[in-house]
């Protein structure tokens, strides 16, 4: 369970983007954050994903208060509890698909053989059953995003965060990605995604709008 209590976030140039936000996301939810450009939805997702520790207020993960200044702790939580899917995929260009998916497992100290086996299993689960030794550059956008989802699942985190996961994909590929995320949610994973696409928003069971730095359901 994720709890944000009186969370605010300001930037030097853009000013305050989140104002005293309170949000609770229970395990197993499928939550969509939407709003106009610059409304702060990605900032909120970054805070939830512990990519941004510059906020004020309180962040609780599974009841434990998170210290945003403890970088090692944040790294460990990102590794074990949160999986992030980016709009631009963010795969490591010089690592093949197996190694990309297995990256978090390397940081967990899992042996190379077990990493590869787990990565192959996850790639198969997202529909990539062959060509695991290819580099990401040769894949289509949809395939790259599926690899990114597999990587997000590598350490078996409870929460999957996705920032415009279909933003760089065509409709068919976008649908495939959303089906994968829905299936994950059906298996008990918490999915939180940011989107401005109404079709994508339709997959979520809870929708929150962000405007002027505040949330409304």
């Amino acid at each position: 369970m994720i709890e944000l209590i009186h969370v605010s976030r300001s930037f030097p140039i853009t000013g305050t983007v989140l104002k005293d936000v309170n949000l609770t996301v229970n395990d197993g939810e499928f939550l969509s954050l939407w709003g106009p450009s610059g409304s702060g939805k990605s900032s909120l997702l970054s805070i939830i994903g512990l990519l941004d520790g510059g906020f004020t207020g309180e962040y609780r993960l599974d009841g434990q208060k998170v210290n945003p200044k403890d970088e090692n702790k944040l790294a460990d939580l990102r590794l074990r509890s949160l999986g992030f899917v980016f709009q631009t995929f963010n795969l490591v260009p010089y690592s093949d698909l197996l190694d990309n998916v297995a990256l978090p497992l390397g940081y967990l100290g899992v042996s190379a053989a077990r990493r590869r086996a787990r990565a192959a299993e996850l790639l198969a689960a997202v529909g990539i059953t062959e060509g695991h030794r290819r580099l990401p550059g040769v894949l289509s956008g949809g395939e790259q995003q599926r690899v990114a989802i597999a990587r997000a699942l590598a350490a078996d985190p409870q929460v999957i965060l996705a920032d415009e996961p279909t933003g760089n994909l065509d409709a068919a590929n976008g649908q495939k990605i959303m089906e994968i995320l829905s299936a994950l949610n059906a298996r008990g994973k918490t999915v939180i995604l940011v989107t401005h696409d109404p079709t994508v928003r339709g997959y979520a069971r809870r929708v929150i709008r962000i405007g002027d730095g505040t949330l409304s359901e």
Partner: protein
Amino acid sequence: MNSLRFHLKLTARRWQYCRKTNLLILLMIAIGLAFPLYALLQISFCAQQAGYYTVKVPDIQDVKYEGGSTILQDQDLSLQPETTRVGSGSMYVQVNGEDLFFPVVGMDGQYEDFFYLSVSAGTKELQPGQCLVPHTFAWEKGLALGDSILIGQQPMEIAGFVDHTFHADQLMIRLEDMARLKGAQSSTLETLVKEKAAVPRMTMLQRQIQSMQNTNRLQMLIFAALGGAGLLIFAANYLLFVYSHGKRLLKVMSIQQAVGARRRGLALSFFAEQAFNGLAVCAVLAAGCAVWSAACFRLPAAAAPVGFLLAVVWLYAALATALVRGALLSKRTPLAQRVKTDG
């Protein structure tokens, strides 16, 4: 967790991926190592010449010397080059008023072998009117460089000392001097002692380097030019890497951080990568400075350590720049923004 080994493995993979850069760096290292190796071989070759020179001379021409006892030491004399002609004889030599009957060897051609063996002479050719005297003999008679002795009626300047086993009991002069002195042993000997001339003394290393410069100057210049070009290419490449590809590197490291890598591990792997670059830069700079100065500026002894020092300064300056730049970028830009920017 987050073991350095795993970080370094990923770093090594990045090197594999960047094949062109990798090959260039390996080439630079090879060039960098080739220069000092070449210089080392040259020096060791010269040292071998200096200490253990025992080449046989197949074509010894006897220059008949009339008067005194003629001694031909055709097997014992070891001279270079092969065209060297040699003659030998004995004559009266007057040193400090004392008459001596002394074996004398006359030679023409280069006298490098004897110069290497002499304690004080350089690698110049023995000039007419100059002689080499056995070191022990000079010590016994109190002779110094620049002193003159009379060989027959001819005053000869002492240009160096011979201390090789084969020639330890002989005076050495030019063959033409020997011909001029033919039949010249005279009963009218007088002492002639000139003022001691100031002859610069050279160390063995200086003589070796000088010889290397004289005999391989073209090669050295070619290598120096190649080294300079390589140095410039590598320096440019390195700067490009640090200042341009650094952005892409930072993006990849941000991705790694986003999926759970700790900053310290990433920083260490980044440092290892930069240190590898720096090693190549050091090798090229040190070798380039050493060879350049040896070939062009004749400052070999000082240049190698100075070059190395420059290289180390360069390395740490570049490393510090890269680290400070990376640290500033990561400080100014939150991770959430870094993973969104284009690499």
